[in-house]
């Protein structure tokens, strides 16, 4: 193992009311992939933001190759050798690949940009990652995975010593993840120190050499991957003992006791989105919707919830034909949907936890019947306790909560409307194991209370763990429906693959 490329000592960052980072030491060596692990709110994002100059740190120091660095902006951090690729691709979709890689760094002649030079530079940056791409293509035409790789090419085009990858795989499928990992390993072998943040344990164990665990803003420890069994890692992250975690993992899935049918679709379809679909949703049952990214899972959810209009087929609610022209229609019928993309589709970032929580119920009650403040406060108090939402109070802005807590507020928003059918589109994406376990427990509880639940999830293990029945989608059509003993990971995989082979 070579010399440390990035060393931090005693990094501290306080926000009003919280110490987000409390004297954290962190060290990433050249030629290693170093995973940074922790639950949401553990301080990973804050650590990264302190390193990349997004947040000025309150105390502590950082060095790159022995030189102290004190970046005040991401640009200064880049100049000091720390490059970052974020979860959401931070590039400009309407520009070409070459423009995106060289943007802001173009060499000029007489004040004019030398495009030939820029293209050549982009090509060589991609070649360093072992990629060949048409650099004149518009970025938005490339897949998310390729965009992610372009972002990495941009990040490593300058003399980066440390490359931070913040949740780079959360919107990629398995093949794309493999491609990304090839590139990351290549960069590691070129001597870069790579800091890898991910919630996917499989990926961490496949890629990382070393793991640093944070909890509640403090350093738990640094471990070589080989010496840290998964259970132990999860236990470190949650601050519980290995036995407790073990007990959580082996929760029993009670035998399905399907209730009466609530909602059914017959040949429901929408051009370019969903091929004719028959589904039956029953009370007291979790129906899993499985399939690869882009197989039409989200489109089905949008159709059910009235966000898109069907152009064929029908929906029946308790036998009566219904048509939802808008989410408001669907809500009146007792439907609820937590959308796939929390940030852009769910949270109202600059409003308070209270406002975010009551907004759906208020929408259902209408403009004139304002929910009395006392009732609002009671709702917030009840749900904060019931779902274990960590906030400094009902008037905290939701954007200052961690992802897992935001997701719980969104769940509470919908539970407050007392729905009969709850559609959860990727409710556990990008949140930590603790919050994930909480949400899975909640799912089971709601099911037992008689709710019909549609659970959309890309992780086949999680899907089969939580569903009583699974509909597998591929290319916008239902290709299998698994029940009883067939509800397991292998069967889901087989259902996806069978059609793929055909």
């Amino acid at each position, binding site marked *: 193992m070579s010399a440390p490329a990035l060393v931090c*000592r*005693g990094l*501290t960052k306080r926000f009003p009311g919280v110490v987000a980072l409390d*004297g954290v030491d962190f060290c990433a060596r050249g030629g290693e992939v170093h995973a940074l692990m922790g639950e949401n709110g553990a301080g990973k994002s804050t650590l990264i933001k302190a390193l990349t100059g997004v947040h*000025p740190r*309150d*105390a*502590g*120091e950082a060095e790159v190759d022995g030189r102290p660095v004190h970046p005040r902006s991401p640009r200064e951090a880049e100049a000091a050798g720390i490059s970052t690729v974020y979860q959401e691709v931070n590039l400009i979709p309407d520009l070409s690949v070459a423009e995106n890689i060289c943007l802001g760094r173009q060499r000029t002649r007489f004040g004019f940009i030398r495009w030939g030079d820029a293209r050549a530079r982009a090509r060589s940056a991609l070649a360093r990652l072992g990629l060949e791409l048409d650099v004149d293509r518009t970025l938005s035409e490339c897949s998310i995975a390729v965009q992610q790789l372009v972002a990495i090419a941009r990040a490593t085009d300058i003399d980066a010593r440390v490359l931070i990858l913040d949740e780079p795989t959360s919107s990629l499928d398995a093949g794309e993840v493999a491609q990304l990992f090839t590139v990351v390993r290549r960069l590691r072998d070129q001597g870069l120190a790579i800091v890898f943040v991910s919630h996917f344990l499989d990926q961490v164990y496949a890629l990382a050499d070393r793991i640093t665990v944070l909890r509640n803003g403090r350093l738990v420890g640094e471990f070589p991957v080989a010496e840290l069994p998964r259970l132990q890692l999860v236990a470190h992250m949650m601050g519980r003992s290995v036995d407790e975690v073990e007990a959580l993992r082996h929760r029993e899935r009670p035998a399905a006791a399907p209730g009466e049918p609530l909602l059914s679709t017959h040949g429901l379809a929408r051009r370019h989105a969903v091929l004719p679909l028959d589904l039956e949703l029953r009370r007291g049952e979790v129906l899993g919707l499985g399939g690869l990214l882009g197989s039409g899972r989200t489109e089905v959810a949008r159709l059910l919830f009235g*966000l898109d209009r069907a152009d064929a087929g029908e929906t029946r609610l308790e036998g009566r034909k219904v048509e939802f022209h*808008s*989410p*408001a229609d*669907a*809500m009146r019928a007792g439907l609820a*949907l937590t*959308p796939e993309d929390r940030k*852009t*589709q*769910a*949270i*109202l*970032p*600059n*409003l308070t936890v209270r*406002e975010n929580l*009551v*907004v*759906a119920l*208020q*929408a*259902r*009650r*209408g*403009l*004139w*019947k*304002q*929910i009395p403040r006392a009732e609002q406060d009671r709702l917030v108090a009840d749900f904060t306790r019931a779902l274990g939402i960590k906030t400094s109070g009902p008037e905290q802005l939701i954007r200052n909560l961690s992802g897992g807590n935001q997701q719980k507020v969104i769940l509470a*928003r919908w539970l407050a409307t007392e729905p009969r059918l709850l559609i959860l589109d990727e409710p556990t994406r990008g949140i930590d194991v603790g919050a994930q376990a909480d949400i899975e427990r909640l799912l089971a509880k709601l099911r037992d209370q008689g709710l019909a639940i549609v659970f959309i999830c890309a992780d086949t293990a999680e899907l089969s763990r939580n569903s009583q029945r699974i509909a597998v989608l591929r290319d916008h059509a239902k290709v299998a429906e698994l029940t009883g003993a067939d509800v397991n990971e292998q069967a889901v995989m087989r259902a996806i693959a069978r059609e793929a082979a055909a």
Partner: protein
Amino acid sequence: MIVDLIVWPTLAALLWVNRRRPLLWPLLALALLLLFNRVFTPGFFVLEIRDGRLYGTLVDVLNQGSKVMLLALGMTLVIATGGVDLSVGATMAIAGAVMARLADVSVPVALGGGLGVALLAGAWNGLLVSAFRIQPIIATLILMVAGRGVAQLVTDGQIINFEQPALVYLGNGALLGLPFTLALVLGMFVLTALLVRRTALGLFIEAIGDNETAARFTGLPARPVKFLVYVFAGLCAGLAGLVAASNIKSADANHIGLYLELDAILTVVVGGTALTGGRFQLAGSLVGALLIQTLGTTLYARNVGADVATVPKAIVILAVCLLQSPVLRAKLAGLRRRPPAAATKEGTV
């Protein structure tokens, strides 16, 4: 002096109540400006009672500022949804023209006609923005450009004078010794505040302005609400237009409300509502309007020519906006906190 006994305690109380609220900065600027005038502008605080009515510079400020205050109420809600309404000045002209045109028919018809056409103008904007989803700045630019032409058509290119006492009273009359326009502004403010805070409209507007996609996913009627705020802005502009026409007892299609849409936008921003939408400050907008009007009157009282008065005005507005800028405030807070941070740093080494 009795005026001091009213003004300063009121300001101090307002400042104290708002010490942790966004309203602090515009209020503080207003207080400083008044203090400046108290010391350096003789006669600024002089009030006298003639024919049972108060006269004086402070009263002028309230009376003159009423039009922008009315506009600001509607503009605040529009801006909170993430939009903007450039047409309010032109709408004022149309409303004034219709009122003058109908003045001879009867007073209720004249008032109803003026407000009705303003509501129509607002509905037109609302339709373009919510149903056809045209960007608000473009959608309302259409009426801003065309509106004065429409007003000219209404008046046949003439300046129509009117003398009906009720119509003249609207912009010049007194109620309990104070300008009637003040009562109008207060009435509209209370009405608006009740509308947004005693119904869910305020929450809906802020949700839509903060994240429209999320608001839609939550089942909020985003388009009807947007339509409604433009109609409301039209109504406010109509009232302001009637007041403006009444002020000069005639409809001057070329000059009524000219550039007032810009003052209204400025006022809302100075009052602490962000142009990006979301949280809005209704009271802030009123204070912003008072600040801008006081500034204008101050410059006039100090004999600064109207041609160059825009420069000091811009400087004060810039100062208030900078004070509200999160970036600048973080920097200032950083300056204050830097020394202890350095100490801890050495401590940990």
